[in-house]
């Protein structure tokens, strides 16, 4: 169904007319592919587990003279029928809820509400993709079935080995790995987070695996050692059952944990990124920025073109101008060695910042000092983390020392060359005192920056289409100018991030439901065993309330242990991420985790009620 809704979006005709349709659609197409692959694995797993639980039935059929060929045909037809039925209900429910999703989607994407429109191609894509999926899975069922030896089939099932083997070292290792990766994540700083990311992820995954396969069983083993606790009321049955369940389900719980962690993290990140764009205005002080490189003869034509376009739209604007000079550098203390260093004068910097409407209370650097010219607020943390650099100029051997970072962005990024690197932070150049600027101006390469200031940034969307590519012409292009149109850039960022969030929501929901269903499948395959145990226990005089208490405990551990662990994992991931971002994502992260928690609780009560009813059916 989700797949179908996604396809609806993908083929929606209105969507193609919107500004940034290509990037958003690309994201949706990716979502389709991810979902398809996931659906494939999920259906394969569930069909496999159902077939395995029916082994005995197949054995009986074979015993009564059904040929293997007929059996395969039967299973194949069964699967195709189920597949067709679920496909039909999926498309129907998709159609029913499509309008709702179109509305939600369009508001997330930040475009006008989309018409309810179902294209044949979206239905066709869904039908063909899933028919193919069921076909492949049905054909591979004989492989899933494994041995067709009668004796194996008929005697399958009942035996189980419950002696949990555990190595104390691996259990300890799980603890150490998890704690170490948490510590590393919590202490990560803007500069170390990139280096630590891979090893910490690997450690967490390994730690989680060991935690479920070894740690949890070791923990229960420890509880078993304490007889006063273990041999008390229903604890005896509860703990021994848990040990068995943990051992049997360790891999599944591990998978669920990792899937949920990935989902949480992805959704948290996308939700925060969506808020990041709220800080967009900080990074784009001028609504249109134009940088004329040396020898640009079209400056006048371009500038008057932009002015005319703005006037035609009835937008009032002001133009500010600043000179940028480039001095060559012989040596620096930076890891990345820039050849040419762009400089602007402090008075120009002040003028640009004040014109953008920011409050200004910075002081001019001394004659040998300089401020780092900030290109984007997100780089501030990295720049603050590195040691202030010093530069030796080529022409007169003058030394420049960084004394600080500009508080505001004065010239949007893309308009100037990018200095620095991903580890130390990138910046655009330096701000020097007016006196120094005058001294260095002589004989240096000079470029001029023109800033257009309008009232709001959205007004400028779509201005200067002929001069820019999707709202920008970066400095690195070989054109004689660089240009940014903030309105267009904002529009693109908004729709792209909106699409990403939308994708994360859709895929996240699918993952989350699937994780819950994995749990349910496991429960289902254990039901027969639990029923037998339930009957025995109730004959021995375990009251209904005690029974329900035991079931609740077991189920809640199965449900909330992986989710809880996933939450802790993602919390530390968010903490690490926080060190990299200059705005707080605590609220977004909290909201995401809380809403998933809520859904899980509802899901738990639903499954618990169903499970108890199923258990008690066997009462008589």
């Amino acid at each position: 169904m989700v797949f179908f809704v996604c396809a609806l979006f993908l083929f929606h005709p209105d969507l193609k007319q919107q500004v940034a349709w290509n990037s958003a659609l690309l994201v949706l197409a990716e979502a389709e592919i991810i979902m398809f692959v996931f659906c494939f694995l999920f259906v394969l797993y569930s069909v496999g587990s159902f077939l395995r639980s029916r082994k005995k039935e197949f054995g009986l059929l074979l015993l009564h003279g059904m040929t293997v060929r007929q059996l395969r045909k039967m299973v194949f037809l069964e699967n195709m029928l189920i597949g067709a039925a679920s496909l039909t209900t999926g498309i129907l429910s998709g159609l029913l809820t499509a309008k709702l999703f179109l509305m939600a989607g369009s508001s997330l994407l930040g475009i006008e509400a989309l018409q309810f429109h179902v294209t044949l191609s979206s239905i066709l894509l869904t039908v063909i993709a899933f028919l193919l999926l069921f076909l492949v899975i049905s054909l591979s069922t004989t492989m899933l079935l494994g041995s067709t030896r009668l004796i194996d089939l008929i005697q399958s099932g009942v035996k189980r080995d419950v002696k949990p083997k555990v190595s104390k070292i691996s259990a300890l290792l799980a603890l150490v790995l998890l704690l170490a990766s948490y510590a590393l994540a919590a202490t990560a700083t803007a500069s170390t987070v990139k280096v630590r990311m891979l090893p910490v992820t690997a450690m967490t995954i390994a730690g989680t695996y060991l935690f479920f396969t070894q740690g949890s069983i070791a923990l229960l083993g420890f509880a078993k050692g304490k007889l006063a606790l273990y041999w008390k009321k229903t604890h005896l049955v509860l703990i021994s059952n848990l040990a068995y369940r943990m051992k049997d389900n360790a891999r599944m719980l591990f998978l669920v944990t990792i899937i949920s962690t990935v989902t949480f993290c992805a959704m948290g990140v996308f939700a925060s990124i969506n808020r990041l764009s709220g800080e967009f205005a900080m990074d784009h002080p001028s609504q249109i920025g134009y940088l004329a490189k040396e020898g640009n003869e079209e400056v006048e034509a371009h500038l008057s073109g932009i002015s005319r376009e703005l006037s035609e739209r009835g937008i009032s604007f002001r133009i500010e101008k600043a000179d940028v000079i480039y001095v060559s550098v012989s040596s620096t203390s930076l890891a990345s060695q820039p050849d040419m260093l762009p400089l602007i004068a402090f008075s120009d910097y002040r003028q640009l910042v004040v014109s953008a409407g920011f409050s200004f209370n910075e002081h001019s650097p001394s004659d040998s000092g300089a401020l780092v010219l900030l290109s984007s607020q997100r780089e501030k943390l990295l720049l603050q983390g590195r040691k202030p650099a010093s530069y030796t100029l080529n022409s007169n051997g003058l030394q420049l020392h960084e004394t600080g970072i500009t508080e505001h962005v004065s010239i949007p990024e893309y308009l100037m060359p990018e200095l620095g690197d991903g580890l130390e932070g990138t910046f655009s150049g330096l701000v020097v005192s007016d006196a120094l600027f005058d001294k260095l101006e002589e004989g240096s390469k000079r470029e001029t920056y023109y800033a257009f200031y309008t009232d709001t940034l959205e007004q400028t969307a779509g201005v200067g289409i002929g001069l820019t590519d999707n709202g920008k012409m970066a400095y690195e292009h070989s054109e004689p100018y660089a240009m940014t149109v903030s309105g267009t850039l904002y529009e693109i960022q908004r729709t792209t991030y909106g699409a990403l969030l939308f994708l994360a929501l859709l895929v996240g929901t699918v993952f989350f439901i699937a994780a819950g269903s994995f749990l349910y499948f496991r429960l289902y395959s254990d039901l027969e065993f639990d029923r037998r145990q339930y009957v025995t226990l109730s004959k021995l005089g375990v009251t209904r309330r005690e029974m329900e208490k035991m079931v609740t405990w077991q189920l809640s551990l199965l449900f909330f242990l992986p989710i809880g662990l996933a939450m802790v994992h993602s919390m530390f991931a968010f903490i690490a991420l926080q060190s990299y971002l200059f705005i707080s994502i605590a609220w977004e992260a909290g909201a995401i985790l809380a809403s998933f928690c809520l859904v899980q609780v509802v899901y738990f009560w639903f499954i618990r009620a169903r499970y108890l009813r199923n258990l008690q059916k066997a009462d008589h």
Partner: protein
Amino acid sequence: MAVLEVRELCKIYEGTISTRALDNVAFSLEQGEFVGIMGPSGSGKTSLLNVIATIDEPTSGGVMIGGQNPHDMDQERMALFRRRELGFIFQHFNLLDTLTVEENIVLPLTLDGTPVLQMKQSALELARRLDIEAVMKKYPQEISGGQMQRTAIARAMIHHPSLVLADEPTGNLDSKASKDVMEAFAMMNWEERTTILMVTHDAFAASFCHRVLFIKDGRLYNEIYRGENRQAFFQKIIDMMSLLGGDTHHLSSVRL
């Protein structure tokens, strides 16, 4: 006073065709008695046991165990009654696979919150007498059928219930294991004065009882007492069973 008193018990299963499974059954068991119930398939043995065990409701009539009528209780108190006053032994052993032999034995005591030390001692003592001490730390699937059933006996008797109910305890055992299990029953009955009611198909198993009740078509048909000689008692049981037209193919006189 009678430990178990069954009064005019009737059980009718409603359905498209209602069947009368029990028809005016009445008997009683004294403290320390070991009584068998025999009868052909479908005679109502299991229905009778289920009603006595409080797993099923009687249609009319009543059951008094130790002077109490458990069918008057609510679900909660009925469960507690089963836990304290009754012990169960099943054909399929019904040990919990996730527990060791020792844990299975102490299960009824843990439910009632007995101190650990006391549980350990009682379990050990019972295991010694039932000769399963060596397998105390093993899981049920690692031990033999005979050992499993003796574990079940220990579980049924560790809390000194007023009545032990056994449903075909030898039904899943070979002849050697059957003999061990029945001797264990006889020993526990003799030494502990435990009252035991056993439903069985097996004339050999029944020959360990003090008396055997025969039912057919839901009615009490006959009852025979053991006397001094078990061999003679066994023969009488076989004769009675062939008279009832039951499934004599279950029997094998070779065992004695």
